[in-house]
Each structure stands twice: as structure tokens, then as C-alpha cells.
């Protein structure tokens, strides 16, 4: 099997005034190339901590993780779009490439095409501040994909959006990720979001977080998952896992 990421026994503790708190304990899983894995868990269970560790923004107390390449390109999509409002949509989309000094004409043209393809054609030269919430998240995703990442990490990327925008953007983001065949990990506390967007769901328990269960989703990418008979069954099962 062609694995993109292998996570082994990650353990993370935080020192607080009232003593040490275990955020995540003994977490192990793997992510295959091109796969979208959703990590679901209650609020505050350490999902973001796990993602920060994989992104290299935090260190575990013990355990380790390996990518299939020595210097993996990691893109991180946050809970907020984190766009720079004084820059144009195009400049925002190119910021990762500029920081990594990988910018060239070919990549600029690729980013422009992505913006055009996903409904941002008329906004390419406009300031990011004029975009709607859903558009901003699309730009944030294109910014992440512009660097052609080995893995894309999404930290509850739609939690700031209203329900209708979230449904439509979920669909768009899922399509963009699948089209680009980018290996991704999405963390969320929304079971529906995990069911609609991923190939596999890892359910975490409350803190100290351990893996409760892993669901391999038997869904095809191109059909409306909600209409499938086992959608509700899996939904209910995850719901029970989270509420035990």
C-alpha cells in the first residue's frame, strides 16, 4: 500500500497551572496517497493539536510520524480563511508560493485557472476583503493547493460559515481536492461534514484523546452521499461513539 503519512503513538501533554493535562494519547493511524481522512471528535479533544503536530507547528511528547518524502510540502487550511485583506485575490492565492520562493509564470497561470474554474474569475484582481465567506474559503483552499502540497491539512475549515454556504462549499472543496488528487486530513466535529467529504473517518474520544473507531466509507465520490441507505446508519454509529 502506498502510504503518504504514518502516525505512530503520538502523545501530547500541556503544562497548566493546575498540573499536566494529556491532550492526546497513543494516537496511531496512516493516510494513503490521494485519500481524504476525516478526524472527528468532541470540541477540545485535541484534534487541532494533532494537526499542528503533523504540520510541524508543535512537537509531541512522544511518538513520531513519517511522510513518504523527506521534506514534505504541507498546506494548512485554518478555521478562518486568514486572507490578507489588503492584497488582491490573486496575490493571496500566490502567497504560499512567494514565501517558499517557488513562484513562476507556469504556477501563476495554474492558480489563475483554478480561480477561474471555481467561480472567482471576476474577482482575481479585486481585494480579498470584498469576497463572501464561501469565496474566501475557496481562495484559502486554492492558496493551499497552489504549492502542490504532499498533504493538505484542514482544521474545521467551514466552522465560521453559515449552514447553506457550508453545504455548497463542502461540495466545491471536496471536488477541488479530489480533482487535484491531494492527500488530505480534515478535522471536524461535524459528522455530516466528515461523511460528505472523506474516504475514511477516525473517531476520537474526549480528552485524553484516543482513537475510538475507524470507519472506511463505502461511498462513491460522484454521487450524493446523503441519499445512500447506509449514510444514516454510519451517521448514527458515529453519533453514538461520540456520545458514549
Amino acid at each position, binding site marked *: 500500500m502506498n502510504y503518504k503519512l504514518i502516525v505512530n503513538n503520538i502523545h501530547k501533554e500541556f503544562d497548566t497551572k493546575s498540573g499536566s493535562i494529556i491532550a492526546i494519547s497513543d494516537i496511531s493511524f496512516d493516510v494513503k496517497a490521494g485519500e481524504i481522512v476525516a478526524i472527528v471528535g468532541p470540541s477540545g479533544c485535541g484534534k487541532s493539536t494533532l494537526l499542528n503536530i503533523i*504540520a510541524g*507547528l508543535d512537537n509531541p511528547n512522544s511518538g513520531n510520524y513519517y511522510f513518504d518524502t523527506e521534506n514534505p510540502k*504541507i*498546506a*494548512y487550511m*485554518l*478555521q*478562518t480563511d*486568514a486572507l*490578507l*485583506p*489588503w492584497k488582491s485575490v490573486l496575490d493571496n492565492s500566490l*502567497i*504560499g508560493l*512567494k*514565501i*517558499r520562493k517557488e513562484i513562476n509564470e507556469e504556477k501563476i497561470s495554474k492558480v489563475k485557472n483554478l480561480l477561474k474554474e471555481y467561480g472567482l474569475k471576476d474577482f482575481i484582481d479585486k*481585494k480579498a*476583503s470584498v469576497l463572501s465567506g464561501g469565496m474566501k474559503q475557496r481562495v484559502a483552499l486554492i492558496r493551499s493547493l497552489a*504549492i502542490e502540497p504532499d498533504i493538505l*491539512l484542514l482544521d474545521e475549515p467551514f466552522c465560521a460559515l453559515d449552514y447553506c454556504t457550508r453545504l455548497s462549499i463542502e461540495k466545491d472543496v471536496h471536488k477541488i481536492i479530489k480533482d487535484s488528487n491531494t492527500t488530505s486530513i480534515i478535522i471536524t466535529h461535524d459528522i455530516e461534514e466528515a461523511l460528505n467529504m472523506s474516504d475514511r473517518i477516525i473517531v476520537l474520544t474526549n480528552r485524553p484523546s484516543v482513537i475510538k473507531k475507524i470507519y472506511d466509507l463505502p461511498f462513491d465520490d460522484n454521487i450524493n452521499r446523503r441519499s445512500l441507505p447506509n449514510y444514516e446508519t454510519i451517521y448514527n454509529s458515529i453519533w453514538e461513539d461520540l456520545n458514549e
Partner: protein
Amino acid sequence: MNKYKLKVAITRFLLTSLVLILWELGSRYNIINSFIFSSPSMVIKSTINFLKDGTLIVHILVTLKEVLISFVLGIIIALIVSMLMYMKKFLHDVLDPFLTILNSMPKVALGPIIIIWIGANNKSIITMALLINVIVSIINIYTAFTNTDENQIKMFQSFKATKMQIFTKLVIPANIPAIISSLKVNLSLTFIGVIMGEFLVSKKGLGYLILYGTQVFNLNLVIMGIVILIILSYVLYDIIVIIEKKLPAR
């Protein structure tokens, strides 16, 4: 200009005219003592005389030069120190209590020491102005830097940006409005510092003119100095506002 703005401008003009007319009439008909309170016409006369003999321009230029040097130096020092404090936590932790102490200290108390150390010249005036403007600017700019959106910083870090890249490509541009607002505060503090310095040690400048006017009981001179100071600070403040408007909207 829309109707509302025109109304505001006319009301301001009428209010100012009313005060000046009442002041002039009060002085002419001895309702107020013109020796103590002067009058608009006497101030204008005095201004014309000082302009004719060329002394007023010299005083204005001396103060303007001291203000500009102190202002530019103050903002450069504040930007460099804030940047170093932001980049090096150690430096911030070392300097923090000193900045707090210096900020709460009445800087005018240092005036006599500055004159002894630096001498009775305009370097002392600039030092006085710097002491007053630089600490507040450092605190304001550093605080703005630390309030940069954490998510934007995290986004930069996720692309493996260096500290310098984060500072130059994110922290500085994100805080342009805060830096501009610090320039405005810095400007008024610089005027306070320069005039205070000129009160203590100078033979030229608007502060000297005001102090001299008070000593010889020439209130025309005092009020003329104050009015010119107001005009000068208003013009410089307006230049900052024009620069602010020219910058891309945040």
C-alpha cells in the same frame, strides 16, 4: 462637498468668527483687559510686524526643524526597537519594565539633567522631545505588532515562512494603520517635547517666543506664538492624514 459637510464647515466658521468678534469687541470696549487678554487685531498687527522684520520666520523655522528631526528620529527609533522586541522575546522581556518606568515618569523632570549633560543647545531640545515621543511610540507599535492575527501568522508558518518573512510580509503591512495612528500621537508628543525644551533652553523658536512674551508681559506675542503652533501642528497632522489616505485600504 455634500450638504451635511457644508453645514458642519459653515457652523465651524461661524463659531470661530463669533469667538473672535466677541474677543475683539470685549477688548475694544474695555469689557476685558486688553493688556492681559490682547485682541485678534493686536495679534494680527504684532504678527505683521514680526513678519516684516523677518524674526518670525526664523523662530518658525527653528521650531519646525526641531520638530521634524525629533519626529523622524522618534519614529525610526520606535520602529527599530519595536521590531527587535517583536523578533527577540528576550529583548522584550529585558526592556519591558524599563519602558513601563520611563513611560510613567514625568520626562520634564529630566530637563535640567539633559541640559547639564548635553548642553544648552538644540540637541537638548531634540533629546527632550525624543524622551517624550519615543517611549509611547515603542509601546504603541510593539502592542500592534503583537496583536497581528494569529491565524495569519499560523498560515505563514505552515508555508515555512522565516521570522523575517512573517515580519516584513505580514506584521508590517497588517499594522500600517497602527503605525500611522502612532505617527499622529508621536507628532503631538513631539510638539510638547520641543516646546518644553525651548522653554528650558533656547534663544530661538516659538517656545522661546511664548516664554519671552510672558516674561515681558507682551500677550500679543504669546498668543501669536500659540496660534502659529496650532497652525503648524494642524498642517503636519494633515500631511499624515493625506499619506494615510494614499495608502491602500486595509
